[in-house]
């Protein structure tokens, strides 16, 4: 490990390497198995509340607060194929590390991102929240379906899919280690995909 400042994931990307990608792909392979489902209603409810808050922060465009939900070393992954693939070997709809998530927010905040100027309005629904245990007692996986109604340049349109959240449990809630967003039309041509999912 180098000096901490040199490794600040907001300004550099040392953590995204082969080991990170490999562990990420493994973490998102065959994880939503019935025998791993967490039955405890209180825990499921806490996860649901977390995901609902995330949706609200995005709808309210509180991007800085949304970024704070993520762990310092995190991934935001929108696969471009339904099989999801290995991002080292194939193009994704989006694959961001911490720095690029902050890039995304920075760009939206410039006021010159014409694809979001004027900004679109969104209403997000999160449903079918299920929680799954992992090998690591401190990490759970949440699976949820989402539906986003978006008003873009006067047109109302819809996004749909499911998300997998890899969540680190902390004393004060969760932090997102990785969020995988699976659009049902991930391998189709879509109009203006500038929305933050």
């Amino acid at each position, binding site marked *: 490990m180098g000096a901490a400042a040199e490794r600040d994931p907001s300004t550099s*990307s*040392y953590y995204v390497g082969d080991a990170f990608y490999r562990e990420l792909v493994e973490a998102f392979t065959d994880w939503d198995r019935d025998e791993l489902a967490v039955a405890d209603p209180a825990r499921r409810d806490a996860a649901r509340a977390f995901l609902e808050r995330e949706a609200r922060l995005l709808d309210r465009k509180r991007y800085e607060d949304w970024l704070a939900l993520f762990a310092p070393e995190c991934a935001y992954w929108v696969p*471009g194929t339904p099989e999801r693939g290995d991002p080292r070997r194939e*193009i994704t709809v989006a694959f961001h590390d911490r720095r690029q998530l902050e890039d995304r927010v920075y760009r939206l905040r*410039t006021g010159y991102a*014409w694809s979001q100027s004027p900004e679109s309005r969104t209403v997000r629904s999160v449903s079918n929240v299920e929680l799954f245990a992992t090998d690591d007692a401190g990490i759970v996986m949440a699976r949820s379906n989402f539906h986003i109604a978006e008003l873009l340049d006067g047109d109302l349109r819809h996004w749909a899919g499911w998300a997998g959240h890899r969540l680190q449990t902390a004393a004060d809630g969760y932090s997102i280690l990785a969020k995988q967003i699976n659009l049902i039309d991930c*391998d189709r*041509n879509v109009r203006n995909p*500038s929305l933050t999912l």
Partner: protein
Amino acid sequence: MTTQQKPILPERVFDFDALVHEDRVHRSLYTDPAIFDLEMTRIFGAVWVYLAHESQVPQPNDFVRARLGRRPLIVVRDSNGVLRALYNRCTHRGATVCRQDRGSAKAFQCPYHGWTYLNTGKLSGVPWPEGYSCDFSRPEFNLMQVPRVESYRGLIFATLNADAPGLIDYLGPVRRPLDEWLDRHPGGALEVREANRLKFNGNWKLLYDNSADGYHVVFSHRSLLMMENRFQEGDGKGMSYYKDSPDTGPVKLYSFPNAHHFKDKRDAIPKRPGALWAIEGLHPGMEHYEAALRRDFPDRADAFLDLASSEPVNINVFPNLHILGNHIQVSEPLSVTETATTWYGTAVVDPDGELGDALGPVNALRMRTQEQFPTFGEVDDLANFEQIQAGLAAEEDAWIYMHRGLGLPERYSAAGDGTTIGPATDEVFMRDYMRVYRRLMQTEPNIAPTRDVS
């Protein structure tokens, strides 16, 4: 089979001399569905159109779906290894025969009544043939196919026009930048690895108008430039070389015959290993893989990192192929006001093992460097194209201007092969391609699909 069919409904007659001028074009080229319909035969039916990359159909029997204009096709490497572009339209009553996007098949059976075709297009069987009095061995019942399909170094093109020049002649001098782009890869080889898939509510020509436009960059991509340079003292990342005085800068535009053109940004970058990498934006894994490559390949790391970086070229082959950075970008007209644009990512394949263990890291970086522009750059252009389409609703304000540089001959030089060389910010490429467009729209091509499977 060169019989030309007369349209059943009378066609509207357009005066393209009145619609396309030296300095401007009429809005109806972008808004009139009848002109769009005519383009599907007179442009997309007349010239060589890009369909797919050979890496999408590497083995015999591999296929991928594509479109020529709006015609649904199956691009297949048949069982004998011959590249074909079959109409994905059952001869019987017209159903889509193949409904998978890609795959491998020796034969295609139509799901509706079970007519079956070999991957050469030959009809191999129909259910209960005793109910027919015709001879199914006659070619008229084979799948229709595009008569001329050719690959230029992996890039598969096809034309329906029996009178079109050969592909090599059609490409002409745009082959030089295409060759240079391909030859930058070990073995001249690359592979398509999925895509960023976009579309916009606008006419397909808005994309071609933009393809060599160096005028829009600092405005349309302002947010991207700001983002890429947010940690920089001065500007230096990404397309910063367009700032200040792009008219006289090192970026050059080459306008070629047959409406192809090339914006060459390479002279804006110092000629040394690692210079391309140095202007890359900030991508996931950059520092990690750079450190690993420098540790493991101290002498070659810069060259490897350049291979992961975006090549500063825009090579445009009329009407639908755009080589940008490391992308093979393909545009598809869907309707007069809707266009798909698919940014196929490419990977280095290294057939001779020149890269050794660097291949994985180079491609891991290269996937990320390619995603950035469609995600944070192209989306803003597409928003601007949509707003042009919206603006063109104004009937009385009928003209679109393209006269930057017109009347200023000192800005241009000519190469003997019909190439004009000028500043990156001039609309000369648009004037040149619209001249070709006008000629094509005034000419009925010899559209000659075949059912001959030999």
